[in-house]
């Protein structure tokens, strides 16, 4: 019986955050610090002819204006994860060639933020302009290369289960269904915008950054500025949300370069608009999907093709396509062929965002499957159950314990699907201005990154003289509570309270190495590392107790932060630490390494009821249920919070969020009035639950939730709207005019 695994534990820094005491990057002030504002391209495609900043330099308090001419032209890929990561390098710190509105050209440095902003307005940039390409399909078929020597369609990844049989099986089926689905680019909208402070003194760089990937930031600084790794210190202060957006280097290299030039710390905090155009996005996509289906709803095979819009630079392009390539195979059990390509365009750079390709793939696939169910007149849940992965089923790339069907069964019951189906049909018979519908969606996402590349962490734990612990984990908590989950795991093993374990901020100089925090590693990989660390500490405590009390180790146990010989209390952890320090003359600390042996897959099934206003086309979500296969719940507060937040992101994806551009490449939804995330008064009360049948490779059978949480959501809403109005919509997010047109047919 677990003591605190599965309990409700507030995240460890909740009180500091609720009282405003937490220090985020933008809250840090260093002595002699100055402020930078980026000079960003105002055109989507072209070349800078001249930059006139003489007027800006005249303003009192302006320290310098730097441009691409002052910075190294070393090419890099901001999505780099570790030294030697072989990905296409197309980006530079600042650029003369601009490839989207928001591309970095230079930086104004001033004594205050206000002066920097004033000076920026006086800078004139002249460009040679080329016609931009906004859409991925247009860029893929264009003869104009956006990057010299590189096809706009950067590469192709093909995978599949029995892929060679797919065409034959589709042709053999009773029916063939084909869809083309276009999904817009969207933004993370972390409430904290991108913030960084770069400092350079005594031949050493220190960076404070809102990042999920400190050690990779360190590698990129080393590569671009030719500095040894041990002279670069990257610190992650508390992160105000990220969702993958802060995985890649965005402003860090500019701040470091600027600090080196002016010999002072330089702080850059992006405004909301800058964060939207000049950081990272979720790839827009064009999906073409074709399936052969028998009359009874059995899908014989699917051919799934996707082009993603990876934006102005290659960045994560191939990686997202690669990560996406096997996700559908983990959820659907019949032969499926996947072909994907990232395409460069003249739009903001796409990167990682919660689900790393899975939301697009499952959105397209679920809409397609729902249309099939509607066409065949089969209940969508019934049709899905014929085609989705069974318990303990093994896909070609992984193994583990998929509990997707359990999620569907439990969720269907919680939602009361069959009753709701009758109720909505009855409701819609009354002519009252509204129609209701119910929808269903599934999704899957991985936990951990192995075998795509190495997936490891080293961790350090010290027992203090009073029995408390210090924990060094370069786990980049984003507010999702992964660090708290690790502390719960350690506490479970060491019989302590979470408060007894204090952790430090991520600091590349003081923490053992870790990958960045992506691929839902926080619980599955880092949490398993924490488990091993705690077990190693427990052994060390017991071994030390053997020396102190001259007893056999086998007879010893720990409970309530004390060492026991059967039922007799021998001493506290503090006593053991003191004995070690005074008699053995050593500290009781353990350093362990952990690597993941294989990723696991998390699953979820979502259910929604919507109400459509027949006169306006407005859609309101009135009920929502989600059940996820979590393996084991470590922190019930944490996992529920993750899922509830993921649902809000998915509802926005379905109903309100999009990044669209005018023909010149200007973002139309460039503030939080126009880019609409769901508000408290628009959200339904969501109900969530979990399947906890365990899986192997993670701590106490846990896998992950953070990314998977959002994967099934958008399609659930879109399918519910289709159920209400009797036809699948084609525009994402849901477009009121299209809804009205369908209703009025």
């Amino acid at each position: 019986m677990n003591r605190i695994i599965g309990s409700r534990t507030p995240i460890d820094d909740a009180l500091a955050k609720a009282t405003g005491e937490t220090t985020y990057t933008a809250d840090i002030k260093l002595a002699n610090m100055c402020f930078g504002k980026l000079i960003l391209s105002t055109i989507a495609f072209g070349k800078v002819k001249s930059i006139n900043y003489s007027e800006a330099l005249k303003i009192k308090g302006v320290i310098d204006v730097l441009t691409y001419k002052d910075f190294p032209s070393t090419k890099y890929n901001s999505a780099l994860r570790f030294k030697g990561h072989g990905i296409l390098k197309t980006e530079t710190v600042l650029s003369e060639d601009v490839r989207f509105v928001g591309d970095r050209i230079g930086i104004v440095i001033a004594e205050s933020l206000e002066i920097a902003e004033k000076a920026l307005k006086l800078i004139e940039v002249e460009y040679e302009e080329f016609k931009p390409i906004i859409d991925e399909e247009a860029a893929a078929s264009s003869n104009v290369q956006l990057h010299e020597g590189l096809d706009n369609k950067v590469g192709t990844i093909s995978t599949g289960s029995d892929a060679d049989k797919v065409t034959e099986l589709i042709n053999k089926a009773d029916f063939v269904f084909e869809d083309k689905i276009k999904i817009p680019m969207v933004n993370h909208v972390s409430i904290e915008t991108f913030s960084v402070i770069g400092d350079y003194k005594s031949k050493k760089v220190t960076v404070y950054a809102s990042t999920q990937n400190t050690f990779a930031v360190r590698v990129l600084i080393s590569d671009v500025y030719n500095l040894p790794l041990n002279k670069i210190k990257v610190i992650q202060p508390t992160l105000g949300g990220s969702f993958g957006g802060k995985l890649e280097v965005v402003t860090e290299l500019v701040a470091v370069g600027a600090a080196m030039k002016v010999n002072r710390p330089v702080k850059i905090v992006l405004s909301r608009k800058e964060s939207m155009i000049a950081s990272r996005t979720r790839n827009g996509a064009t999906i073409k999907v074709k399936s052969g289906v028998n009359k009874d709803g059995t899908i014989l095979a699917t051919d799934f093709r996707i082009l993603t819009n990876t934006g102005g630079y290659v960045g994560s392009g191939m990686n997202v396509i690669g990560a996406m390539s096997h996700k559908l195979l983990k959820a659907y059990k019949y032969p499926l062929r996947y072909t994907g390509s990232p395409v460069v365009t003249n739009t903001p750079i796409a990167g990682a965002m919660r689900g790393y390709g899975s939301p697009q793939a499952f959105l397209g696939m679920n809409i397609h499957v729902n249309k099939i169910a509607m066409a065949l007149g089969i209940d969508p849940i019934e049709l899905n159950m014929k085609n989705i992965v069974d318990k303990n089923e093994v896909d070609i790339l992984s193994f583990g314990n998929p509990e997707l069907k359990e999620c569907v069964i439990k969720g269907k019951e919680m939602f009361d699907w069959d009753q709701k189906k009758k109720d909505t049909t009855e409701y819609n018979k009354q002519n009252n201005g509204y129609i209701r519908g119910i929808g269903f969606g599934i999704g899957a996402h991985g936990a951990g990154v192995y075998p795509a590349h190495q997936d490891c962490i080293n961790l350090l734990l010290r027992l203090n003289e009073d029995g408390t612990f210090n924990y060094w984990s370069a786990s980049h908590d984003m507010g999702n509570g992964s660090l708290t989950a690790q502390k719960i795991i350690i506490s479970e093993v060491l019989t302590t309270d979470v408060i007894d374990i204090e952790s430090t901020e991520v600091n590349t100089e003081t923490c053992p190495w870790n990958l960045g925090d992506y691929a839902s590693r926080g619980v599955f990989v880092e949490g398993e590392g924490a488990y091993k660390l705690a077990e190693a500490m427990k052994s060390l405590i017991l071994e030390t107790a053997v020396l102190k009390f001259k007893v056999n180790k086998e007879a010893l146990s720990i409970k309530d932060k004390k060492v026991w010989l059967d039922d007799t209390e021998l001493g506290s952890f503090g006593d053991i630490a003191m004995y070690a320090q005074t008699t053995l003359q050593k500290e009781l600390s353990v350093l362990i390494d952990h690597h993941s042996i294989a990723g696991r897959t998390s699953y979820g099934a979502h259910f929604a009821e919507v109400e459509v206003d027949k006169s306006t086309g407005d859609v309101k979500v009135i009920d929502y249920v989600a059940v996820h296969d979590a393996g084991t719940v470590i922190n019930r507060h944490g996992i529920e919070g993750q899922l509830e937040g993921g649902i809000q992101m998915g509802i926005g994806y379905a109903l309100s969020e999009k990044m669209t551009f005018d023909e010149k490449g200007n973002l139309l939804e460039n503030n939080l009035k126009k880019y609409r995330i769901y508000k408290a008064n628009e959200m339904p009360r969501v109900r969530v639950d979990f399947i906890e049948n365990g899986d192997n490779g993670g701590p106490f059978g846990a896998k992950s939730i953070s990314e998977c949480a959002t994967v099934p959501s958008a399609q659930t809403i879109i399918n519910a709207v289709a159920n209400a109005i009797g036809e699948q919509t084609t525009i994402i997010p849901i477009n009121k005019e299209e809804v009205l047109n369908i209703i009025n047919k």
Partner: protein
Amino acid sequence: MKDCKLSINGRNYNVQVEDKWTLLYVLREVLGLMGTKEGCGTSDCGACKVLVDGKAMNSCTLLALKMEDKEITTIEGLGNSDKPHPIQEAFVEAGAVQCGFCTPGMVISTKALLDQKSDPTEEEIREGLSKNLCRCTGYVKIIDAVQLAAKKVKELK
């Protein structure tokens, strides 16, 4: 630069400000009161909310000079880790805090709401927080927190 007298969290400050400086800019860049956050700068997200004469307002679009003769309360004025306000305790206990960047603004809006209505319905809570964006929680545990806070505040009375 002009003289500006501000009353913040019960303390009087004399500061020099430019005409265009916002209250948020003065709080953060001049006075170092970093608990109030900037999430948008356009009055759309509510991360910068402070109480102005008891009303929750976005400090990113309030001019500092217009705040003279008003009583301003920031998140620092409600409580601290050693002596948290019951609303702050409720946010912690309900699991309503994730990344925390919207939390100070949420707590301020909750304070304004509960000062007006000691026992709000769920709908009133959702309406009361509709000017505060959160990207982590889906608002579920935030609504729980406000309900819990209402209970805690009432018990204190």
